[in-house]
């Protein structure tokens, strides 16, 4: 009972309340509610731990599986540095598969968190970077730099301008994403219906795509082919030098979501309630928008416009964790984002594993095949989701 004697209760206006409160507290009641709280939390801890295990397993698997199979013990030896360092497997894993798998984990986490932030901010279960035009805005930014710079396009997405070119593409992509989210959010303040906001996002997306189409129409076939390849989506475009831009930006965005879980929770009740409980809604909205723009923009710049991960991952986490509480959802979404992206990456390699090695499935097709059913399920059991329109 001594814990009731906090400094707040010492103030005059709270003395009456404090006395009353002490009177109704019975130890039996307290211990019961503590037990109940612990049960809910422990289930979430177990799920999150399991997710971490699965993520590690998928990570190792993604390093082992490709057109050339590398045994898991050799993968571990290469990762821990006990391998001689001369084998072909060593080079393949270090230079191709390791950056690709790390990119998948980071991009999956980035898109998942951006989706989670959008869903909470717009209080809309169908919000995600794609639906709200962030991906289209980012594409526009990328197209402006890639298709008009005159630089020779090499690799999957970037120009031969080197890191400076990559940085320019990334900046343009983030700016495009930020433009999209600003326009949609400004308009969304004028409409009540969440469905209308999504339609606004789609309309912005179409407009951005129209600009991209105009840019693409005037470009030469070689650039055009690269552009189309970028549109398929891929985690293979990030080599180690590019990782020095990609990873820090994603990590900053993820860190922002991790330190704003209590603000995101307050927003679950809507902006008016959040504000009445002490949240500076305006600042939080700007911060979240900036964070989601960076996450969505960076992922789009480096991996192409990857569909459905942003919307599907938060819902998978809500289902598994059984809560809308961001203290569990944020870590869960980061882990789940990595798991789903790695799965999609491995699935996209299936054609290359078959006899005759017929290349890979476009990543975007794989993520859509995973994500679309999730969206359908969300629509069908909307009443049990986080937000019901």
């Amino acid at each position, binding site marked *: 009972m001594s814990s009731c004697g906090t400094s707040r209760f010492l103030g005059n206006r709270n003395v009456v309340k404090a006395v009353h409160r002490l009177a*109704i507290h019975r130890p039996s009641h307290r211990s019961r509610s503590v037990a109940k709280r612990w049960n809910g939390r422990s289930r979430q801890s177990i799920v999150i731990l399991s997710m971490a295990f699965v993520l590690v397993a998928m990570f190792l698997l993604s390093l082992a599986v490709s057109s050339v199979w590398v045994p898991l013990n050799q993968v571990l030896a290469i990762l821990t540095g006990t391998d001689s360092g001369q084998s072909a497997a060593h080079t393949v894993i270090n230079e191709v598969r390791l950056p690709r798998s790390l990119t998948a984990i980071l991009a999956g986490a980035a898109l998942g968190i951006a989706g989670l932030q959008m869903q909470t901010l717009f209080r809309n279960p169908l919000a995600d970077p794609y639906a709200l035009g962030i991906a289209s805005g980012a594409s526009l930014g990328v197209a402006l730099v890639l298709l008009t710079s005159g630089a020779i396009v090499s690799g999957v997405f970037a120009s031969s301008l080197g890191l400076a070119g990559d940085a320019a593409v990334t900046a343009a992509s983030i700016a495009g994403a930020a433009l999209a989210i600003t326009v949609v959010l400004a308009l969304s303040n004028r409409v009540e219906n969440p469905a209308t906001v999504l339609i606004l996002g789609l309309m912005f997306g179409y407009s951005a795509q129209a600009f991209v189409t105009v840019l693409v129409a005037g470009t030469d076939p070689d650039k055009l082919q690269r552009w189309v390849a970028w549109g398929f989506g891929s985690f293979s475009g990030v080599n180690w030098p590019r990782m020095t831009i990609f990873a820090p930006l994603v990590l900053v965005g993820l860190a922002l979501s991790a330190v704003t879980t209590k603000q995101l929770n307050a927003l679950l009740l809507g902006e008016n309630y959040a504000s009445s*409980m002490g949240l500076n809604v305006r600042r939080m909205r700007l911060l979240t928008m900036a964070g989601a723009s960076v996450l969505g923009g960076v992922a789009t710049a480096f991996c192409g416009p990857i569909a459905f991960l942003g919307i599907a991952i938060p819902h998978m986490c809500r289902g598994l964790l059984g809560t809308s509480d961001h*203290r569990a959802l944020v870590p869960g979404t980061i882990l789940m984002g990595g798991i789903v992206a790695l799965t999609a990456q491995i699935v996209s390699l299936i054609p290359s594993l078959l006899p005759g090695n017929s290349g890979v499935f476009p990543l975007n097709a794989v993520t859509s095949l995973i994500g679309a059913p999730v969206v359908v399920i969300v629509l069908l059991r909307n009443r049990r989701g986080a937000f019901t329109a």
Partner: protein
Amino acid sequence: MSVAVQTLDLAVGYKSRNSHSVVLDELNLSARAGEMVCLLGTNGTGKSTLLRTLARIQPALSGSVTIDGTDVRQLSQMELARRVGIVLTERATVGALTARRIVELGRYPYWDWSGRMTQADHDVVDWAIESVGAGHLASRDSMSLSDGERQRFMIARALAQEPSILLLDEPTAFLDVPSRVELMGLLRRLARDEQLAIVVSTHDLELALRMADTLWLAAGNKLTAGIPEDLILAGNVAEAFQTESIRFHPEERTFSLVTDTRRYAVVRGDGLNAVLAAAVLEREGFQIGTHTTDALTLAVERGSTSWELTTGRTHHSGTGFATLAELARTLITAQPHGDETNSPRADNLRN
């Protein structure tokens, strides 16, 4: 009792780029700790605007709002959240979140950066949930609760902020009648027990007249404050709500539809059956009176639903309110073309 919230020459309304639209002005109001204030007024009289201004969701056009002796403009958002709790009309439906967790969100203004619940936080949450009498529902998913139960948790959440004033904007709007009465009773008890100043806007006029310590009655651009009985006596309540078709009855503190027929009925008999029989006739358009000259007479046997209705020289009798209602309906509609002997004028001529 100390004054929890006070306004000084407050004007509320909406500011657009080059014009002010004042909804209510010259507001000098106060609510004391332990007092339940009901804010009444027809739609568009500015109830929500006033509550939003008191909660600093929107700025005052002029004048000031003082809470616990401090001007709200000088409070930080966190300080304000520790003094004012609000419950809104909007249904804040959040799935996959326990009702208890929603109440825990009310501890927001006391959390450190990580949002970790301390033991003291848990104690306050336990207290808040007990205060609204919803301890047995706390572990349920908030989506599985009824509207009334969910509204209780929204109130508990506001209580968890440990405010000195609670502002509620039509909290009973979606609720069924028993839940409305319960909720108003709960608010009244909270005001007393927790020494809270509670301001609640509602359309539940008759309930408010019975339960409020103080009424704030918004009509036109003005707001009249006082205890319900004073405002009834001064005619303020009738003035604020009475229209050509609605009449306020001060004695019963109820409203009724004004009927334009001049048919009168006298009901003889006592007990509940007689009262209900009168209600049947009233609904069908008769005015219930005591004089007999031009009225039909209804006699109801005590303790049964057998009745006997006399109009002019015609007698009808029957059992049950349904048959009575049917007869009353034919008498009312038949009147314009009906036999002259039933009309008041014919009665008068004959006498």
